């Protein structure tokens, strides 16, 4: 019997059944399931030998590349909990995540040494950095270990995770309404269940060739790896979608069959298609999430991907995915994000937690084995999201989003309950941006809003009040933001005012700024 309770069990099985099948393609380089298994085992053996205990966290801070894949499975084989940090993360936030997670080891790349070296001394629990790429000669507080030296040690006996499926597998950091990112706790059982549910409705099998240019710190990207390994299929990793022609060449060269994207990617694709017609017959699945796919895109995408089923989906990191629209229903329900993913349920409640009927707007609640265990180290914020008293013994997720259900169980998004901004498919906490603005000498007041934008979903606009003699202007403010925030969080527009409007309780009134 094939047992696949843990995420790493899927890799052991794929290695046992088909060691020479290609697991991962990065550019011209192919890696087999043997390569993936052996490198993951070497990383696991090193972590175990260095004293990593079951359940301890290991951070992975790399751009999309080959080493990120064995790093994830290496941590899992060692019995650890992995967290992937976006490689564009700046030093301040990187330090926060390393401290908050209590990461014992950092797996990274010399390319981003400029970000991680300065913060290592602030991370007391961190024991060593294992890095890919060029040799670092830095004088440093922590041991710096080249990944190549870790991989050069052959593994004599298999490193086993010594975990059960109720143990944590990953922390997935997401923006929080208080400004600090929160680590969503996911067990092996959560992630294995979710993988299988996604595979079921996407109708995938071992012949899938899954393209991944989305960042792997984003759960949408991460699950492309997990699904590929779960299926024993092939993953094609690209750095990003910044140079589309490079991605197009990869699709044609590898005959990729699954194309996961977000609206900005599809809009770029359509823009190029109008100049030079595109056609990718190898692609059989196109998926969209993160922001609504405009209905008018669908017929054009059907021309670009003539053999593909097109899926509209909706989700949040706290349960990974909520719903999907059957491709065959796309024309019948053009504005819906579909129904609950297989094996889960959704319902709509009013503010008194009373059930609402069809076509009534209320808050979305989600139940299923995909619901997170909570936020790492944040019991109060966890209590706001996980509701205990609706069904005895069960945690139900309150999505903080307003939705409607129709008579057929299809969901319609109506707006957010909190003021998190969604820009380019990424969640942006206004407070996180405001906190950076307040660190600029001369800024007295700051407020950040999402302004509706057809392409980005929302763009980020900052309002600031500054001291007259501060010498600040829009350019200087954006420069500071660029140095301290990921690109997608930097305000597109900064409006400088004498002072910002206040509510009766003397808080900055975002409602007045919006009007």
């Amino acid at each position, binding site marked *: 019997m094939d047992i696949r309770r843990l995420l790493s069990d899927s890799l052991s099985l794929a290695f046992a059944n088909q060691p020479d099948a290609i697991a991962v393609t990065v550019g011209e380089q192919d890696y087999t399931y043997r390569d993936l298994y052996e490198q993951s085992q070497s990383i696991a053996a090193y972590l175990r030998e260095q004293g990593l205990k079951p359940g301890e966290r290991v951070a992975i801070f790399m751009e999309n590349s080959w080493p990120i894949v064995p790093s994830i499975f290496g941590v899992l084989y060692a019995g650890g909990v992995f967290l992937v940090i976006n490689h564009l993360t700046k030093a301040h936030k990187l330090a926060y995540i390393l401290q908050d997670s209590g990461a014992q080891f950092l797996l990274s790349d010399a390319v981003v040494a400029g970000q991680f070296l300065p913060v290592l001394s602030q991370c007391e629990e961190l024991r060593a950095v294992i890095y890919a790429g060029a040799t670092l000669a830095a004088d440093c507080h922590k041991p710096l270990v080249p990944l190549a030296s870790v991989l050069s040690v052959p593994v004599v006996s298999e490193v086993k995770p010594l975990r059960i499926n109720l143990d944590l597998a990953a922390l997935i950091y997401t923006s929080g309404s208080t400004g600090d990112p929160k680590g969503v706790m996911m067990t092996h059982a959560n992630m294995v269940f979710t993988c299988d549910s996604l595979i079921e409705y996407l109708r995938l099998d071992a012949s899938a060739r899954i393209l991944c240019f989305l960042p792997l710190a984003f759960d949408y990207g991460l699950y492309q790896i997990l699904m590929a390994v779960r299926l024993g299929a092939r993953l094609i990793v690209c750095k990003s979608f910044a140079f589309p022609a490079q991605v*197009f060449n990869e699709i044609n060269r590898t005959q990729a069959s699954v194309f996961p994207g977000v609206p900005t990617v599809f809009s770029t694709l359509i823009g190029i298609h109008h100049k030079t017609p595109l056609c990718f017959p190898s692609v059989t699945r196109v998926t969209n999430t993160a922001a609504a796919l405009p209905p008018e895109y669908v017929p054009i995408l059907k021309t670009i991907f003539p053999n593909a089923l097109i899926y509209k989906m909706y989700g949040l990191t706290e349960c990974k995915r909520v719903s999907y629209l059957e491709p065959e229903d796309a024309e019948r329900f053009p504005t819906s994000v579909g129904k609950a993913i297989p094996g889960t349920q959704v319902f709509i409640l009013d503010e008194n937690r009373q059930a609402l009927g069809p076509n009534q707007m209320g808050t979305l609640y989600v139940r299923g084995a995909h619901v997170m265990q909570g936020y790492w180290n944040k019991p109060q914020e966890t209590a706001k999201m996980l509701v205990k008293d609706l069904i005895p013994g069960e945690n139900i997720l309150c999505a903080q989003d307003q939705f409607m259900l129709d008579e057929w169980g299809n969901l319609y998004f109506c707006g957010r309950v909190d003021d998190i901004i969604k820009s380019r498919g990424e969640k942006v906490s206004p407070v996180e941006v405001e906190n950076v603005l307040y660190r600029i000498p001369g800024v007295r007041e700051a407020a950040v809003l999402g302004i509706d934008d057809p392409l980005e979903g929302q763009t980020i606009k900052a309002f600031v009040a500054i001291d007259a003699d501060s010498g600040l202007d829009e350019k200087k403010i954006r*420069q500071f933001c660029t140095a301290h925030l990921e690109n997608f969080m930097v305000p597109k527009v900064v409006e400088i005012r004498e002072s910002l409007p206040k509510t009766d309780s003397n808080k900055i009134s975002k409602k007045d700024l919006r009007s």
Partner: protein
Amino acid sequence: MTANSAREQLRQFILNNYLFTDEQSALADDASFLDNGILDSMGILELIDFLDETFNVKVAGDELVPENLDSINSVLKFLATKN
């Protein structure tokens, strides 16, 4: 249009819009826009619009590769092939 003035205009565009500085040393001519987090996917699209508006150079779909667009030097080389 001399190569120098194109270089200046291009550098000014990147410095002003993505690095928000006049400090010339902030941008090396051979620095990868993507690897250094100077531009992301949206930034590359804005760069393409800039090349169209400023130099009347249209970038075709199959030209959207790093060899043409990932640093000041690679963009200048690409512009030269278009003239």
